[in-house]
């Protein structure tokens, strides 16, 4: 675990490293270094399995989306999280981990992060003609107003 972070720290000296609350090491790199970082962990550190890609939206930040790539080494039994902050775009890693294909479509669909080089970057969960990206924090909640007494202050009903 520590060796992994150390190895990545030498390859990406500018990157911030640490440990998440769940005990998984992370390294935060620039968006244009994501492909290099994932290529390194796959080929030399034996993180064979791409587990998850998601994003966190903080609209107060300039680079509002923080991408979280979660990978797992089935040889070493080690998890690793690679983070990258971006305003609206990131390189696609489908050519490194083919399993990232649908995850990148999902992040594009729900957050609006455009993955350059993705083979088919279309919506995957919302209807094809949907407008907007619903998991952005500034996106309206949708639904219908409900007239409960406890919600009258909230909805102004």
């Amino acid at each position: 675990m520590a060796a992994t972070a150390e190895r990545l720290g030498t390859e990406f000296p500018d990157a911030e490293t640490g440990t998440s609350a769940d005990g998984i090491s992370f390294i935060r790199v620039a968006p244009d270094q994501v492909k290099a970082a994932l290529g390194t962990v796959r080929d030399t550190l034996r993180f064979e399995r791409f587990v998850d890609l998601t994003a966190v939206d903080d609209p107060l930040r300039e680079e509002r989306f923080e991408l979280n790539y979660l990978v797992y080494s089935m040889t070493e039994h080690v998890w690793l999280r690679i983070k990258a902050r971006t305003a609206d775009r990131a390189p696609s890693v489908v050519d490194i981990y083919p399993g990232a294909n649908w995850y990148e479509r999902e992040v594009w669909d729900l957050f609006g992060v455009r993955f350059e080089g993705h083979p088919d970057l279309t919506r995957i969960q919302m209807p094809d003609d949907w407008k907007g990206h619903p998991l952005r924090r500034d996106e309206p909640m949708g639904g219908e107003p409900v007239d409960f007494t406890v919600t009258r202050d909230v909805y102004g009903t």
Partner: protein
Amino acid sequence: MEMKDQPSRRDLQSGAYGAEASTTPSGAASASRDIGPVGTEWQGKGAITATDARSVSAERGAPAFGLSRLQDWSREQSLWPVMMGLACCAIEMMASSASRFDIARFGSELFRPSPRQADLMIVSGRVAQKMAPVLREIYDQMPDPKWVIAMGDCASCGGVFNNYAILQGVDKIVPVDVYIPGCPPRPEALLDGILKLKERIGKGQV
């Protein structure tokens, strides 16, 4: 609360889907019909008449037949649901069809994988905006006469999912005959809903 502009929902409510996006008109057609207790009344009164040539679903465009009391009685006996489970309510629906609750006692044990062979659509769960056109297409593929049960809070009104993703009540896209509250409803509640629907079908009210 500010409403989001959602083209897909608007399309569902207008246009092709708008024509039937209300609950079933039950009063107009059935008000003039005098139909007694099901299964006994029609036998002695010469109920097999061509003059009563009004189908229970004539409003929906089905060809009108005579023999409507016999039709009502026979349709009531075997409501075949379409095999469509959407969410956790579907687990209760499956439990209803298993031996403990045994939906077969009421003639509805045949869940048909093909909507062409089904009379009844049990909307068992929340319907996502993306699922709504699919559900409507399944409904359109069912032959007349057909009935819809909105099982559970989500199918009835959206339930706890008051957000962008979930259709706020399946009656926005298909006409619903029976609403069953509960989250999810117990199998007894589903059976009660089916019995209510059977009763109304037998009386020619839906």
